[in-house]
């Protein structure tokens, strides 16, 4: 009974993610081929790196005769935020087997992490079945979209004309707002927002993500320390 409910809940959590990420899956495939990838290479990247819109940060480097290790380092840098996700979700999945964790964390993309955190917040069990019922449909559609985009090119000629190019920031804003009941939410959002904007202007993408996130997390740690010190 619980298993059935977890599967339904998981798929329900996946649907909005699939809708919001859909255009970007197609766009990635199309851009990858534009940058000299074969269809197979585009699908390989969606299937193995599996990092949503951050896959697009990497692909324009490939054509530019940049040293391979530098491209790999860039992919590592833009995805470094996942270290934080894995630390957080790891604590809430102590009841999983080791194998489940090693397999499950492969699917730990931004929306998967947000949905897992929301699930844990409601007090419902963060079961492996739920996690994979959300993660697997998102993964399969993402890889399929990469293939379709790579094969048929840009299905939508000018995404900006339909506002599609700006759906992802709106979607991520929705995820941010979903956590507004958490302690210190506002100061964390303000610090991360300002520092990421500053880092974007001064250091550049993709470093603004890690720098901004680190600032927000440190702000939360600093605030949490205060009442404790006052009590000592």
């Amino acid at each position, binding site marked *: 009974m619980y298993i059935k409910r977890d599967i339904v809940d998981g798929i329900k959590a996946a649907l909005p993610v699939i809708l919001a990420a859909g255009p970007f899956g197609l766009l990635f495939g199309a851009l990858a081929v534009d940058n000299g990838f074969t269809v197979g290479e585009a699908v390989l990247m969606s299937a193995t790196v599996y990092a949503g819109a951050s896959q697009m940060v990497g692909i324009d480097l490939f054509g530019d005769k940049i040293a391979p290790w530098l491209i790999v380092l860039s992919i*590592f840098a833009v995805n470094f935020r996942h270290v934080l996700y894995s630390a957080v979700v790891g604590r809430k999945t102590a009841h999983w087997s080791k194998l489940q964790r090693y397999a499950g964390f*492969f699917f730990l993309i931004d929306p998967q992490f947000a949905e897992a955190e929301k699930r844990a917040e409601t007090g419902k069990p963060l079961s492996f079945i739920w996690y994979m019922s959300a993660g697997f449909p998102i993964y399969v559609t993402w890889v399929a979209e990469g293939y379709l985009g790579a094969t048929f090119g840009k299905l939508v000629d000018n995404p900006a004309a339909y*506002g599609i190019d700006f759906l992802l920031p709106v979607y991520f804003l929705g995820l941010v707002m979903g956590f507004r009941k958490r302690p210190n939410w506002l100061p964390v959002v303000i610090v991360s927002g300002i520092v*990421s904007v500053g880092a974007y202007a001064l250091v550049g993408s993709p470093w603004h993500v890690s720098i901004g996130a680190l600032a*927000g997390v*440190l702000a939360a740690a600093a605030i949490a320390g205060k009442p404790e010190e006052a009590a000592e």
Partner: protein
Amino acid sequence: MELSTTAWIILAGALATYLTRIGGHLVLSRFPSIHPRVEAALNAVPAAVLTTLVAPAAVFTGPAETATIIVAFIAAFYMPAMAMFAVGWVAVLAFRAIIG
């Protein structure tokens, strides 16, 4: 089958990405107890990271997009996430038509 240079770079990038996805857990699980500051920091991770994916896009894309984020931000207080997503979509189309 011969793998292309691109394919090798992709596979190395995949490995690097996977390491970030298990790394945080592998490091943190070595500590038996968690300091309250670390606890607070971990609780802040969703807001801290996801904000960095929004803020630069809100500031640097253009006035229509900045206005969109403001509208979507206010809308989020009054409706569920999917409805706010729809409002944001309509808003970006409307603002681009009006202010470009």
